[in-house]
């Protein structure tokens, strides 16, 4: 649950961003994030809210971890948590 999931911002309207998570586009709320977010940025989504803009220099490293986590099957707890985080968006 505290893992979150990173995604790439595709579009921003006032309080919501359209974010791409491994090819799936979802809406994420921007109420909580403390920095301006622009298309091309990566954010960390937790339960449908962006909680952090990921510094550009950390994006590759962050994505690599999640690539590995998403390789698991449905019984894997971390894979399940990451998928649940994506399901928390709308």
């Amino acid at each position, binding site marked *: 649950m*505290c893992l979150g999931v990173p995604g790439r911002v595709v579009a921003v309207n006032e309080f919501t961003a359209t974010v791409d998570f491994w090819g799936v586009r979802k809406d994420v709320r921007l*109420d*909580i994030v403390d920095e301006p977010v622009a298309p091309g940025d990566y954010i960390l989504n937790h339960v*449908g809210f962006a*909680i952090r803009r*990921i510094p550009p220099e950390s994006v590759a490293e962050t994505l690599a*971890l999640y690539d590995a986590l998403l390789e698991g099957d449905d019984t894997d707890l971390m894979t399940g*948590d990451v998928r649940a985080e994506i399901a*928390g968006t709308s």
Partner: protein
Amino acid sequence: MSATPLQFRDPQLARSLAATLAHLVDGLGRPAAVMHVCGSHEQAIAKFGLRSLFPKALDVIMGPGCPVCVTDVPEVDEGVLLAAQGVRIATFGDMLKVPGTVRSLADAQAMGGKIDIIYSPKQAVDLARKTTEEVVLFATGFETTAVATAAVILDSPPPNFSVLSAHKYIPPVMEIVAEMPGSRIEGFLAAGHAATITGSAIFEEFVERHGVPVVIAGFEPNDILAGLVELVELIREGKPRVVNMFPRCVTREGNLAAQQQLWRVFRSTGGRWRGIAHVPNGNLRLRDEFAHVDARKRFPIDLASLWDYAPPALAGQCICGDIMAGIRNPRDCRLFNRECVPENPVGACMVSNEGTCKIWHLYGGVPA
């Protein structure tokens, strides 16, 4: 068993970190115990087989880092009683099988209660907008999740939406665990993403009061190893302080916008954490200003109706509380992997994906 083989992106770095860790622990000349307070850390440790790389003399214990596990029995009872009144309960899937005094939410559902699984507080609001029924978000989670609940409360939810808050606040429980008589914990590994909200500064006062170092670490296997290296180094130095090893997500002051929303909606108050203790300031409850969205104010909830029931016999043998306090581990429990399994859990630690028992059950626990 779905434990995956080691998938370090940099196995050479992992080996080198493990060797450094072993050397440092050797240098201490005695066994040491450290605690992390995050289900995702325990998942990563178990999934990537990190315990086989930890020195034997270093005990890495998962503390009360599972919000669902520490949701207290009367809090589950409140949700069950609301469901029995015909109120729709929206909650995270992990909550369903958590035992209450008599029933779990899954039992309430089997008896006709309306329980909806959500993945975000926002989805509970969406549900309320689509119906005229009363919808209660049974909200669990630490501060990282509570800020999302705060945000939906501040965003003019519909009048049939309210919140039953079982949100918990992590910093105070670290104080409790550090002060437990006979505590062996000499350092804490704090969770990177939770600290994203709170910032690293929140741990500074803790370190000053308890003389125990705190290292903030990420979830990559090498992040965890590097965090432990730093932590043991701090123990050896004997000059406790806070070290942030996750600067890519955590700043000293944290996410101020999120903190502001959190404390505008919630106040911290003392309450019991299941199996652990009364934790002063450990529970997050709605401020009076938000009484109109507080399910505890909106509905009569008579917990006394459950007082005549004795807890199920097996529940008396569950040592979940001792496990979360770091005193014992799942292997010490006579129910673990026998009467208590994820399909039929006795204690909350076997229910949640973030519970120590479920994680050990799934990934095979500690190496012999």
